[in-house]
């Protein structure tokens, strides 16, 4: 099997120089992140902090950005598997795999941010704090990851069995092990083949995913000492932003994958992508309404007025108006509407990339500005992340893209028609 895998990778390199360049670029990113990590271990963890007074910064922003998008994908996937929209089921494998990898690498960001990551699993298991949102969030994301791994396995099991049938020797044994072929001989085999099982697992994934997402929003919303974060607004906004960032990630990745592979998109997949673009435009508009509502109500509140002014006219005004309002909310809506009318995938791709960029900056502003008030009234000389932070974030994102690329290469993620088996 190893020989075959190596051979297929080498063939891919031989036939496509773009693939070679892509993998090399990702490897370089991972290497640089390795350097930043090593430097933080050898020198001091301080090099990963742009200010001691702001202990949650770029790594936490990247974590939220990726994990919330992954949770959004879980909700989008439920439209097909739980709510019975068959056209969404076409993309189920890609959605689940993308959700799985984004949450896994999102959690990597937070593990790198922790001082003692090795203690998390032990103490969150043996002495969890039920009053702490982080404790709930960690537990729920762990359960969610297990559930979606099962869901993904159920979806690709038929393919694994088929591959085992085609292979021989050790490869066959490995595929049989991955497919748990033995189950077919037991009573459990019937349960695994039951068509209702994916729906049950999908429902479980939706419930745990949404609960974990709510707890992620609550991590910030529970903090009464941070005026900008506190209150019931953020758990709700996290839900909505999960949906639009999830859609944006899915659309961007799908279109780029098809273009990179030079594959033709099935008409029903294309129709679904344009439908998703419509939904994304609607969600972005809803998000903009919610942001405006928060600003208006906040400005009338004497307690929240001062921290909100940090966004509107303060040091974050450029990021807020250009990225959060312009790039994340207003501009992509117009581009999406135009792309839908003219049926252009390029427009959908660009608007998705705009949403992803805008969302990242929005998360960064949310995290950093939230910690400025009330204790750093005099402000800081710079609010930009350090080079080491950028290297680490780039490397983990590179690893995420690498795993997705390899998954795309070796797993049956490509969409099949609605009526194809």
């Amino acid at each position: 099997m190893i020989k075959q895998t190596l051979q297929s990778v080498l063939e891919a390199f031989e036939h496509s120089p773009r693939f070679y360049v892509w993998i090399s670029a990702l490897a370089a990113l991972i290497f640089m992140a390795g350097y930043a990590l090593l430097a933080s271990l050898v020198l001091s963890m301080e090099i990963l902090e742009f200010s001691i007074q702001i202990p949650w910064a770029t790594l936490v922003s990247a974590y939220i950005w990726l994990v919330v998008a992954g949770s959004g994908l879980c909700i989008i996937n439920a439209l097909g598997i739980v709510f019975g929209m068959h056209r969404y089921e076409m993309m189920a494998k890609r959605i689940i795999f993308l959700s799985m990898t984004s949450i896994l690498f999102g959690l990597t960001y937070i593990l790198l941010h922790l001082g003692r990551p090795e203690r998390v699993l032990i103490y969150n298991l043996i002495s969890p704090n039920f009053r702490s949102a982080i404790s709930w969030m960690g537990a729920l994301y762990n359960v969610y990851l297990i559930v979606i791994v099962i869901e993904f396995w159920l979806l690709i099991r038929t393919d694994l069995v088929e591959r085992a049938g085609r292979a021989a020797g050790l490869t066959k044994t490995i595929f049989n092990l991955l497919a748990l072929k033995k189950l077919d001989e037991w009573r459990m085999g019937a349960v695994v083949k039951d068509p209702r099982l994916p729906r049950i697992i999908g429902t479980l994934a939706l419930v745990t995913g949404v609960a974990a997402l709510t707890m992620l929003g609550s991590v910030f919303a529970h903090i009464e000492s941070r005026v900008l974060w506190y209150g019931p607004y953020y758990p709700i906004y996290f839900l909505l932003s999960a949906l639009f960032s999830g859609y944006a990630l899915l659309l961007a990745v799908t279109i780029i994958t098809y273009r990179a592979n030079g594959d033709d998109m099935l008409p029903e997949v294309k129709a679904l992508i344009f439908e998703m673009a419509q939904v994304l435009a609607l969600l972005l508009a809803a998000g903009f309404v919610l942001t405006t509502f928060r600003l208006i109500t906040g400005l009338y509140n004497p307690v929240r007025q001062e921290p909100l002014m940090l966004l509107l006219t303060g040091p974050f005004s450029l990021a807020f108006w250009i990225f959060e309002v312009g790039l994340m909310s207003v501009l992509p809506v117009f581009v999406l509407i135009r792309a839908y009318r003219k049926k252009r995938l390029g427009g959908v791709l660009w608007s998705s990339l705009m949403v992803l960029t805008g969302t990242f900056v929005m998360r960064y502003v949310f995290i950093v500005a939230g910690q400025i008030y009330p204790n750093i009234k005099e402000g800081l000389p710079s609010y930009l992340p350090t080079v080491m932070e950028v290297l680490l974030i780039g490397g983990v994102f590179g690893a995420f893209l690498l795993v997705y690329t390899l998954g795309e290469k070796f797993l049956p993620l490509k969409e099949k028609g609605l009526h194809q088996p």
Partner: protein
Amino acid sequence: MNKKAKRIGRRRFLKLLAGALVYAALGSAGIAAAETRRYGKLVDTTRCIGCKRCMSACKRWNGLKVDRYELITDRETDLTANNYTVVNLRVDVRNRARRTYVKWQCQHCEYPACAGVCPVTAITKLAEGPVVINEKKCIGCRYCYQACPFKVPRFDFEKRITRKCHLCYNRIPLLNYMKPACVAACPVGALSFGYKHEIIKEANRRVQRGKHTGYILGLTEAGGTDVITILPTRPQKMGLVVAPKKRISQGLDKIRISASGLLAASVMAGVMHLYAHTTQDRDND
């Protein structure tokens, strides 16, 4: 049953009253005992001379690193993992002639928000009063710093955990009435240590006796703290972090906030169902 029988007689009323009094006395005895057992620290900034001997003693007792210039009087220092307590000169914004040395440290809240958010229960409020971080359990997430209304717990980049003042709890349980290191080192009696109810009485007495109007920090801030600080004026006028005068980050409040998210999720599920139902025909096209 007639009206007369329903009425509570004098004898029955007296019995009920006596019973209620006995119950109240017995029931509150435990709470009263717990309250009297609790220790507190008094920081009288009107007496402080800014010598920083408290900082030095704290560092010695806890084996903390000393930076070259931080123990010089009037040198502005910030709380760090190696500075459990700091003494800084603060100027009243309305009366710049009024300059006071303010000793700042963990306020040891009665209802610590940091303990409520620590994901691995590494922070505990001891019955005697101190709020203590278990350094062997801390995962270094810095959530306690975010939750603290006074912004006290600081991250140690070497040990990769969060550290703060523990009110020398490792001296208190010896029950030989040893004071915290800073209190024992104070040369002018600006720091006192004792049972909390006595500390509060002493603080009130000093403020009433003082020439100027004073402010007692810690009676109501964050629901009350075990470190009581006498300030010459209100904390906001001295540039100190102002904590809300109520118990913060309560369990019910957290449930209310998370429930809003779950409520929104159920609305979202309804919208998803509607979306699936109204566009069902597209699956057949």
